[in-house]
């Protein structure tokens, strides 16, 4: 076995040094009935690199990569171009094969980039502090709801109809056991602002509300000014939690912080990370400094070494499970370190100017797409305002149309029936994301495809 350095002779002599004859003497505590006498026969034995490569390549070959076709799928995961240097750098063994920086003196590489990452996330979201990452946007959202409960000592969270339904489902599964009460909006394909239920939310906020959770841009791509909502929250002692699933939007749009958010969570996949069929992704978590001791997850902080030189360490760990155990703010341990590295590298390559240009391009391309699709008979573009994603209503059931376009090698967005199987009112809707990878001819191909499919 190429990964195991011992030869049988080594094993024998090491056993002798230990003072036993057979390896199973070291497994003496295992109840005899449970100790397997030989390798599990229902699984194959070891394979060469070439064999493994062939098996896995065969499976990979049965999937259609986003780069291979006109591609318009978003809804919480976005296809952006990631510079080659990002993947090169995150593969450096010193990053890839290290772990949580428990020994800061020999983990300054990891700690410094985490400190930089935290600062970038805080600035991007308009918050004062950010942590060193969560699993993904959905779990970060649930953690935010729980954190709001701890801060406000209230249990009722209002969740906008525009929040990604998976995120809502995750919160629901946990609320069941945590005792949080979730009031969840029902999305409508309202002309102009699909999923935009801010009026309704304003009416629901009261002194029992722990927080209001809104997504911006929301699942349907609709973007809105949240200032009024924030004010209503604050007037009632509640917190505004803003979810961002497309962080590239922050290059062009007002930050949640500027609009009054108290906690901003998000999915950071868009920057630095590939689609990866859904994971690993990168949970972002930022908030006002005054809430820092209620934050979940790791925090990296600046300090000095014995010679007074600047250095970084994990800090405020009295919030965390390994110190506080059942009193911890969260049970999270391993998080998304390497994805955070990819994010911070990509974002420092982009810089402010690059991010702004990228966001601008995304928006402009999406506007082009919306304008073109609006001309297709049987297509209605619903959003007034959007960033790089918008919803269309079709004259036919959207799932069939999307599937038919898939057969023509056009991946034409997410049919809302996929996400809301029981909300039949949404079933003629499709959400389309348009990023910098979409060309004008891709848009044309989509428009033509829709024309054909809708007219026949």
């Amino acid at each position, binding site marked *: 076995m190429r990964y195991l350095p011992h030869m049988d002779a080594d094993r024998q002599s090491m056993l002798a040094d230990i003072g036993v004859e057979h390896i199973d003497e070291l497994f003496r505590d295992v109840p005899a009935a449970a100790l397997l006498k030989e390798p599990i026969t229902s699984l194959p034995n070891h394979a060469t690199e070439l064999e493994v490569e062939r098996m896995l390549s065969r499976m*990979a070959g049965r999937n259609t990569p986003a780069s291979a076709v006109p591609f318009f799928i978003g809804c919480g995961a976005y296809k952006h171009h990631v510079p080659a240097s990002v993947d090169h750098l995150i593969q450096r063994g010193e990053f890839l*094969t290290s772990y949580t920086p428990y020994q800061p003196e020999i983990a300054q590489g990891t700690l410094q980039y985490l400190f930089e990452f935290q600062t970038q996330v805080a600035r991007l979201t308009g918050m004062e502090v950010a942590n060193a990452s969560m699993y993904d946007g959905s779990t970060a959202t649930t953690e935010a709801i729980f954190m709001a409960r701890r801060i406000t000592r209230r249990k009722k969270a209002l969740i906008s109809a525009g929040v990604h339904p998976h995120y809502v489902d995750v919160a629901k599964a946990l609320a069941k056991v945590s005792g949080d009460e979730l009031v969840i909006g029902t999305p409508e394909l309202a002309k102009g602002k699909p999923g935009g239920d801010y009026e309704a939310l304003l009416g629901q906020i009261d002194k029992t509300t722990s927080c209001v959770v809104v997504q911006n841009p929301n699942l349907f791509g609709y973007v809105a000014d949240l200032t009024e909502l924030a004010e209503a929250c604050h007037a009632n002692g509640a917190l505004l939690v803003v979810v961002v699933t497309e962080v590239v939007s922050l290059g062009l749009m007002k930050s949640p912080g500027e609009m009054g958010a108290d906690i901003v969570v998000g999915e950071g996949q868009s920057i630095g990370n590939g689609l990866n069929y859904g*994971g690993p992704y990168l949970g972002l978590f930022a908030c006002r400094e005054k809430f820092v001791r209620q934050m979940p997850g790791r925090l990296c902080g600046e300090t000095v070494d014995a010679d007074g030189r600047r250095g970084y360490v994990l800090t405020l760990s009295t919030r965390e499970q390994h110190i506080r155990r059942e009193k911890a703010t969260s049970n999270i341990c391993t998080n998304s370190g390497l994805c955070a590295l990819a994010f911070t590298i990509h974002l420092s390559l982009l810089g402010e100017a690059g991010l702004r240009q990228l966001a601008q391009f995304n928006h402009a391309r999406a506007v082009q797409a919306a304008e073109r699709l609006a001309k297709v008979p049987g297509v209605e573009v619903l959003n007034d305002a959007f960033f790089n994603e918008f919803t269309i209503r079709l004259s036919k059931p959207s799932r069939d149309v999307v599937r038919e376009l898939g057969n023509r090698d056009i991946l034409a967005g997410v049919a809302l029936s996929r996400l809301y199987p029981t909300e039949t009112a949404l079933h003629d809707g499709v959400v389309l994301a348009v990023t910098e990878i979409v060309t004008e001819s891709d848009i044309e191909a989509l428009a033509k495809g829709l024309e054909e499919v809708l007219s026949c």
Partner: protein
Amino acid sequence: MLNRQGRPTGTGEGASAEGFTTFTGHKGLDLNEPLIFEIGRGDRTGVDVPDAPKVASRLGGLEREAPIGLPGLSEPEAVRHYTRLSRKNYAIDMGLFPLGSCTMKHNPRLNEKMARLAGFSDIHPLQPQDTVQGALELIDTVAHWLMELTGMPAVAMSPKAGAHGELCGLLAIRAALEARGDAREVVLVPESAHGTNPATAAFCGYRVEEIPATENGRVDFEALKKRLGPDVAAIMLTNPNTCGLFEPDIIKIAEAVHAVGAFFYCDGANFNAIVGKVRPGDLGVDAMHINLHKTFSTPHGGGGPGSGPVVFSEALAPFAPLPYVKKTEERFELVEHLEEGDQSFGRMVAFHGQMGMFVRAASYMLSHGADGLRQAAEDAVLNANYIMAKLQDVMTPAFEGPCMHEALFDDRFLKDTGVTTLDFAKAMIDEGYHPMTMYFPLVVHGAMLIEPTETESRASLDEFIGALRSLAEAAKNGEKERFTAAPHFAPVKRLDETRAARQPVLSYKNTAEPGSVTTPVAAE
């Protein structure tokens, strides 16, 4: 000091050794590196973006006006920045990394290559299922291996790490209990448990009660039996446990737990010690997470991403979360939504889990095969016992007898030396090693938990053993400075963790001088 012309880099003072101080503060290949905020500029970018098509904005008036404050680096600057940072890290690729409980084994490069195949890395979780049949097959393959290796009939693939897997397990247990109308309040956790166990139980609304350990480092079965009762929802037990020991009473424990209608959650973080040797399903386990980033070697990545699939017994299988992959005659199907009559507790995460990690784990499993995985477990146990055998005369093993995949020592051998476990660990850094896990598990005083893993050669173990013997002797010989002032040779000296917590500086505030220390603003 470099000041008139030069950018003063890094940490201010020049470096010195043998009487010399460099002007730049660099020392040969040991290079200082300022923060991106001190190097980068907002108007510079390392990414070319084409000019945006001219269109009328449809942002709804939400254009950002204020600057964000993000520095940009050209690609040359970025590559250099992150390369320099990386060189300040220790890693498995550099040397033995005996961080107990974390299983820092070699990460095969084939896994990385496979995970980057466009057919896996460049597909969207919401693509039509016909366009991702190979991805579903991959998930199904990993699921199959995990079920066979554990002897369990079901697996939930979506949990994102070990702790998330614990959550998954407890949510299923709670759902199962509720399904039978049997709300219970308590989860029992041994003193030696990893912090995530009690944290998870509390997160799920349970009261956590500790169960004591025997002086052999095992669960006190009698004490446990006494505590069991109708209020107990579950026990969370790590096996092999965090002392690196197999729980000999495990089957009896499972029986006793089941006898009171409770469930047995097993923390499978140490599954790597027994994979292919013992199937948790044969021990009476109801749910167990598996850290793919430990047992199946998907890399730790400086703190994740991990992956924590959970295997379930028949009793819990109906309550497992969504989504899951179903193999039908013609195709693989991804089930994302509850169907009529489903008892699933719901969804743990957006989309379908850590696909990138599944590919790596598949590559690892297929490469090792049933025989290789078993050999890996045996070698892991062999290596830990070898270290134990070779160090037991100069260090103090916490418990008697052979261990599993990690060797646990306490700090008795440092008694009266003025050297603490922390000092000892820092001195290991100077010798070229990452320290072991310190002060965990809590049941042992000044614990030092050494997990060499199976991917260390005998020569590597011998060198490590030699270093630890020499250090242990040095401590006993009164060479206190070697320890208390350690590390001497790391990129930085010992860091002030207290200051960091008392006066937290959690993000960069633009200051005057690159490399200068921030004046903390928020004093506690």
